[in-house]
């Protein structure tokens, strides 16, 4: 079963509803003793990086997530939740992240070679698949719904499974080993987003049965 990690950052309603509609079993908790029962995790998140990390530490969840990842349980970070998987962020001063994936989070550029662009990056953007993954089979060129002002600069290009062009190539889906993330909101990204959630859930199930 999927455990949705609730650490007081943002709206988990839509993720829950999307899982329910696809009949994917889940539970929500912010307590490690409960969460440890899960076969895989979704780390959602909307808001500021620093607050999010503070909350995760306050609830003793940061170390917990790292330990669970080390056990090989699949983890999917969504939006801010994806950014938290990386080493650190420059949002409101430097803050250390979970360090499960290599890279830093920085502000999206407003100045681009052919002028200026608006930040936040808000709306539907096309997924350009960069590295083959079970999450993305058949989804190259599909659109996903993004809302963010910061983006990941991954150290290793192979971590970026798909990107979206917004002045820079914004990592849209990342993954390494059993740790995955989507910068966009899969639960708000119509059929492509739901497909990704479903595939992640299948991965969690496989792990549970193994």
């Amino acid at each position, binding site marked *: 079963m999927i455990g949705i990690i609730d650490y007081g950052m*943002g*709206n988990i*309603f*839509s993720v829950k*509803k*999307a899982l*329910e*509609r696809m009949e994917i079993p889940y539970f929500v908790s912010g307590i490690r003793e409960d969460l440890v029962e899960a076969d895989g995790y979704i780390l959602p998140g*909307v*808001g*500021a990086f620093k607050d999010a990390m503070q909350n995760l530490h306050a609830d003793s969840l940061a170390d917990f997530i790292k330990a669970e990842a080390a056990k090989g349980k699949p983890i999917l970070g969504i939006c801010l939740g994806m950014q938290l998987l990386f080493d650190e962020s420059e949002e409101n001063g430097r803050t250390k992240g979970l360090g499960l994936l290599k890279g830093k989070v920085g502000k999206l550029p*407003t100045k681009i070679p052919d002028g200026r662009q*608006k*930040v*936040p*990056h*808000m*709306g*539907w*953007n*096309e997924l350009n698949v960069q590295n083959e993954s079970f999450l993305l089979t058949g989804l190259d060129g599909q*659109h996903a*719904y*993004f*809302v*963010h*002002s910061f983006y990941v600069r991954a150290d290793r290009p192979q971590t970026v499974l798909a990107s*979206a*062009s*917004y002045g820079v190539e914004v990592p849209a889906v990342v993954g390494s080993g059993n740790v995955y993330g989507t910068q966009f*909101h899969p*639960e*708000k*990204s*119509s*059929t492509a*987003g*739901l497909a990704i959630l479903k595939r992640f859930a299948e991965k969690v199930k496989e792990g549970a049965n193994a």
Partner: protein
Amino acid sequence: MITKRIIPCLDVKDGRVVKGVQFVELRDAGDPVELAKFYDEEGADELVFLDISASHEGRKTMIEVVEQTAAQLAIPFTVGGGINSLEDMKAILRAGADKVSVNTAALLTPHLISEGALYFGSQCIVTAIDAKYDEELGSFRVYTHGGRKPTKWEAVAWAKEAVKRGTGEILLTSMDQDGAKTGFDLELTRRISEAVSVPVIASGGAGNADHFYDAFTEGKADAALAASIFHYKETSVKEVKSQLKGRGVNMR
């Protein structure tokens, strides 16, 4: 490349869609959830619900509508109308809306925008601006109370103020064009869009696909909203998108 967004808008009163909607294929054309699903399937990029209930009961019903819609939709949606406090925002967002839109209350108490942005994040807070050309001002003036009361604000100045306070998006309605079906107010839209760093949704005046094209090109809008032409099937989201794609506009 990011796409331009097409956004149908539904007026909801006491839990029902008002302003006639001509959808024979729906079980119940007055049901906001059914209509939301219909537009989702047609390729709408987002939806806006405008709650025009006057009563407390009507507002409570809106929360139920939001919950049911959120349970069925996999595209973002915004709820506006009568949002006066942080508590109102909280109730709507908790029920599953992705964004709330503020209008009159934000003009009366601009810190509502700042507070909302701080609590829920800028991406959740849409500032709706109703503007009308004003000879005396030589520019566009902002109105409150559904366009009934003029304010001291010039539209560009207010848009900038809203952005400074943390709004993540602007829903800009031209009162001059609203309902005219002769096209969006391109001058107004371009002025605001060029002045602010957040996305601008053009609203008011959509009559056909060409009007959307103009809003995105000349008006520099990031998204465009329409109600009646979609509800009365004068055109469809699908048709507009296919025409725009044909003219080189990036669409989902």
